């Protein structure tokens, strides 16, 4: 489903991704762990072409993301095509980034209407259904500022689902939340995992990773150090760095 091959990315002199290879199968949940600054967000953002990679390929469902290949050169796609590709990928941000001047319902309706040109009246019942599904149905007419962090993040998840994406990407979806609100958001993500969505989740919640991950990937310093089923990577890590990290987080 997602196929990342030899991805390199630098910010100026700082090389953040140093050759990442990653495969995610349809319906699988991949959890990415790693210390702060190791490049987790950058990798996730590259999958959505929010960052341009310097080298390497990213494919979703066989379709090259962000570029068109001509011979041995990659040409960046037009804005329009990039936006179309992005609408197949749902992205959930650490700090929600809900549109502050729109209600919860309008937040969810916005992308189907303006990116897929569907009718507002058509999309609304579906949007309400999504809000219901993430447990904020009664907050449809509230503005983001009137919602708790946990509720905001759940609306953000509904918003990402509104385009019926093939893939969902979560960048530390609970790390901006008060501890007592973390559970409600994780429950929603677990539910999605159970329904068979393809997901990549960056998180520091080890217990959660153990519960939902099919594959755990440990990244350090721009490289994948270790990956495998949670039982192996979390309980019997091979590499010293993985061991050190996990003992610190637990």
């Amino acid at each position: 489903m997602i196929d990342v091959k030899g991805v390199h990315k630098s910010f100026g002199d700082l090389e953040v991704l140093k050759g990442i290879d990653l495969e995610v199968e349809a319906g699988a949940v991949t959890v990415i762990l790693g210390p702060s600054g190791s490049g987790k967000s950058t990798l996730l953002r590259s999958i959505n072409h929010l960052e341009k990679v310097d080298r390497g390929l990213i494919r979703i469902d066989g379709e090259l993301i962000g570029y068109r290949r001509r011979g041995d050169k990659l040409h960046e796609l037009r804005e329009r095509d990039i936006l179309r590709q992005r609408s197949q990928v749902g992205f959930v941000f650490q700090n929600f980034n809900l549109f502050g001047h729109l209600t919860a319902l309008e937040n969810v309706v916005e992308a189907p209407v303006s990116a897929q040109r569907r009718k507002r009246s058509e999309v609304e019942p579906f949007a309400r259904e999504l809000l219901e599904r993430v447990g904020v149905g009664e907050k449809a007419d509230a503005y983001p500022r009137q919602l708790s962090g946990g509720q905001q993040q759940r609306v953000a998840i509904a918003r990402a689902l509104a385009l019926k994406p093939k893939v969902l990407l979560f960048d530390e979806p609970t790390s901006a939340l008060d501890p007592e609100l973390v559970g409600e958001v994780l429950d929603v993500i677990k539910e999605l995992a159970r329904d068979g969505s393809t997901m990549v989740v960056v998180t520091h919640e080890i217990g959660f990773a153990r519960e939902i991950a099919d594959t755990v990937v440990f990244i350090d310093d721009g490289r994948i150090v270790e990956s495998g089923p949670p039982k192996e990577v979390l309980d019997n890590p091979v590499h010293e760095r993985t061991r050190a990290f996990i003992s610190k987080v637990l």
Partner: protein
Amino acid sequence: MSTTSVTSASGTTGPPATAVPLEADLTVVARRHPWRWVGVGVVLVLLAMFVHGLATNPGWDWPTFFQFFATRTVFSALWVTVQLTVYGTVLGFVLGAVLASMRLSGSPFLQVVAWGYIWAFRSIPLIVQLLFWFNIAYLYQELSLGIPFGPEFVHFSTNNLFGPLGAAVLGLALHQAAYAAEIIRGGIISVDAGQTEAAAALGIPKRRQFFRIVLPQAMRSILPNGANEVISLFKGTSIVSVMAIPELFYQVQVIYGRNSRVVPLLMVATVWYIVLTTLLSIVQYYVERRFARGTTR
């Protein structure tokens, strides 16, 4: 509610307990502010003196004020002032929006050009700039539109192109644009970058990202500053009187030049400026309320 019984029952002699309430029932007495009241008193006296003076000092010459306040001459002058304000605002903010987008663009060249424009027009006093435009015909007798050093398509005589009113509007608008550009740019960059990022991640088209997501939120800070600019432009039109354009301030000057009743005629202008500024403030209130969606609990 039996809070009093304890003390009164155990009392031996003494006054039979002016009931001591429980701590939770104590009443709150706000702190007193004697000096505030002194301040209020002083200001009231001063205000009374001022109003008394307005009413009784013959120097204000209210009969003359009322004689001219609602005359046809004053109204047509007021109309010129309003036109200058409207055209100046519209052109100024349109050009300002263009300059702001140049400054926010990815092109260093456009950025520098816009920055240079803003720098220049904020440095030149408005009155100096206006006098330049007024004398433009002295510098360039003819303007032509065509390929530089090549064929001309159209050409105008500068005097036809800019009547004095046109020159005034142009001057006000060019001046206004420099300030409007900064206000618009400030509003746009005050919107969190996460908003565009989220919109981009959802595949929302670029134009719509701007008009649907960024601009409505930028308006929150553009509006109060923009309204300030409109009001200051409205009053600033009085500067145009140096170009002998029959706007409000010029017209009252003409009238008191004839009848020497300076003070009542200045009051005519003053009261009209106040009335229209008040109207603008009311409009501002309602427009701002419209863009305040989602900002309060």
